């Protein structure tokens, strides 16, 4: 849409709106972005699409940066226990992302421990165990069907006694409208607060970039039961753009901390707002 030498007319703005909507930015946000771009075009008397593209990308990058200071990357503190609680709907990529994160921190000489708190889904514990073996870190687990809270309890105790740097907790996928499963998540978080009160806790919502506007409901409802601190946007190696995160950061102050770009152990990257904004129009 921003092709060189293109005339900035109604057709241009229509096509821009279409591109934004097709990137899952959402109708309202797309309209707002186009309106603010029109305003800038008039105010700064912009005549070429290159300048306009940069203006729009800058605006989007700004919306994705949220409250700058505390929101750059996953917040890991030295010399204390860090706990990363990973939550999200079914199939979003939680378990795989945890495997990648374990590798990421392990290769940076951190002492990592994993907790297999998805005790429900078939072979979920086995799946995380394979990742633990690949990375070379321990996995705290119990039998399938056991209480997830009990696994989290054990994991917190183990992490404290082993002086673990980073404990990453895998949870079962759950749809946000399932009240009982949302309650279970609340309970898991309470156990973490109680058993590791001095820990630095990050609660990350894993979001599949192929998700549409339902991501908003996910962020809202998960956020009502646990204090979410960020998003991990997965499967960006596909053709989906994940534009819905623009609204999530801007409206809910939920920044994207990392992105998943494949199924391999190294396919995890830090989130760079400017790169993401640029990719929307690639």
């Amino acid at each position, binding site marked *: 849409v921003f092709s060189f030498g293109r005339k900035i007319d109604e057709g241009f703005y229509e096509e821009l709106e*279409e591109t934004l*909507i*097709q*990137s*899952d930015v959402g*109708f309202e946000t797309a309209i707002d972005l186009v309106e603010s771009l029109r305003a800038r075009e008039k105010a700064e008397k912009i005549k070429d699409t290159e300048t306009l593209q940069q203006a729009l990308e800058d605006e989007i990058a700004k919306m994705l940066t949220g409250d700058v200071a505390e929101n750059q990357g996953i917040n890991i503190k030295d010399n204390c226990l860090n706990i990363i609680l990973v939550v999200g*709907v*079914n*199939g*979003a*990529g939680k378990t795989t992302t945890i*495997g990648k994160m374990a590798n990421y921190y392990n290769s940076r000489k951190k002492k990592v421990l994993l907790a297999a708190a998805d005790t*429900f*889904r*078939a*072979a979920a514990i*086995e*799946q995380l*165990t*394979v*990742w633990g073996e690949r990375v070379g870190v321990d996995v705290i687990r119990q039998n399938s069907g056991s209480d997830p809270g009990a696994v989290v309890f054990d994991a917190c105790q183990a992490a404290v006694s082993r002086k673990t740097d980073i404990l990453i907790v895998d949870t079962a996928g759950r*749809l*946000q*409208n*399932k009240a009982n499963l949302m309650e279970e998540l609340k309970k898991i978080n309470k156990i973490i607060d109680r058993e590791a009160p001095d820990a630095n806790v990050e609660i990350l919502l894993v979001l*599949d970039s*192929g*998700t*549409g*506007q*339902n*991501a908003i*409901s996910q962020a809202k409802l998960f956020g009502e039961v646990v204090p979410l601190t960020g998003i991990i946007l997965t*499967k960006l*190696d*596909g*053709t*989906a*753009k994940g534009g*819905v995160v623009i609204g999530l950061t801007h409206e809910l102050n939920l920044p994207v901390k990392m992105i998943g770009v494949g*199924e391999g152990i190294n396919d995890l990257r830090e989130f760079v707002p400017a790169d993401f904004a640029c990719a929307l129009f690639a």
Partner: protein
Amino acid sequence: NLADRLQETFKKLTGKGKLSEADVNNAMREVRLALLEADVSYKVVKDFVAKVKERAVGSEVLESLSPGQQVVKIVNEELIELMGSTQAKIAVSSKPPTVVMMVGLQGTGKTTSVAKIANILKKQGRRPLLAAGDIYRPAAIKQLEVLGEQLDIPVFALGDKVSPVEIAARALEHAQKNGNDYLLIDTAGRLHIDETLMQELRDVKAKVEPHEILLVVDAMAGQDAINVAETFNKELSIDGLVLTKMDGDTRGGAALSAKAVTGKPIKFVGMGEKMDAMEPFHPDRMAGRILG
């Protein structure tokens, strides 16, 4: 919801007489907004609204005492028509086993769904055999084996060092030898733009000639659903769609996108994680859900 918003749009018109082009355009804007909010893909919305507009400028709306209600009625009818009929029939081959293959993006619910469908067939008195064709995802084979055990349905597996094409071929031989009248093949999740893995699916298809290739689509999918469905259909010529995680609160517009771009029927709807949570597709319920 759309009905309320259209009421609002047309409320100011009562007694004004004839509907103007502007009035109809306002109504169409509401329809477009409702569908985009429901995650129906942009191009599908464009075509759909054009179709609705054609009817909306006709006498059924213009001469109606409640034009808002008329437009809602048209939208509902067109949606149901586009969604297709209630279609829960899996193919039945005259030369068993009937071969079913599940395909789709990562994490959409293929493994869970293939087991549910095998369970439905078993309850119908069939003798299904499941084949573990995902050699990439950690514990994927184990996952299918656990489900098979829960359902008392046999799972054919050759471990993760054998190619999926080979697994499918040997599973077919096994089904033929053991009198299984259905062979359901689970495949690894993959991106529609992954040339190598899409070729792998074409190779499996060529090897065992499935009677039913089902594309599994996540009900919460966004705008990209149209690209995924179109590509899988182009590459494999799918026979139907399975819509999963419909027990969530998503409007499910991806269903309309996938159906519209492929023209293939939605055969099943996943309504939960348990093995009994699979229902036939109801176009009228889906239409109502998409419209909010």
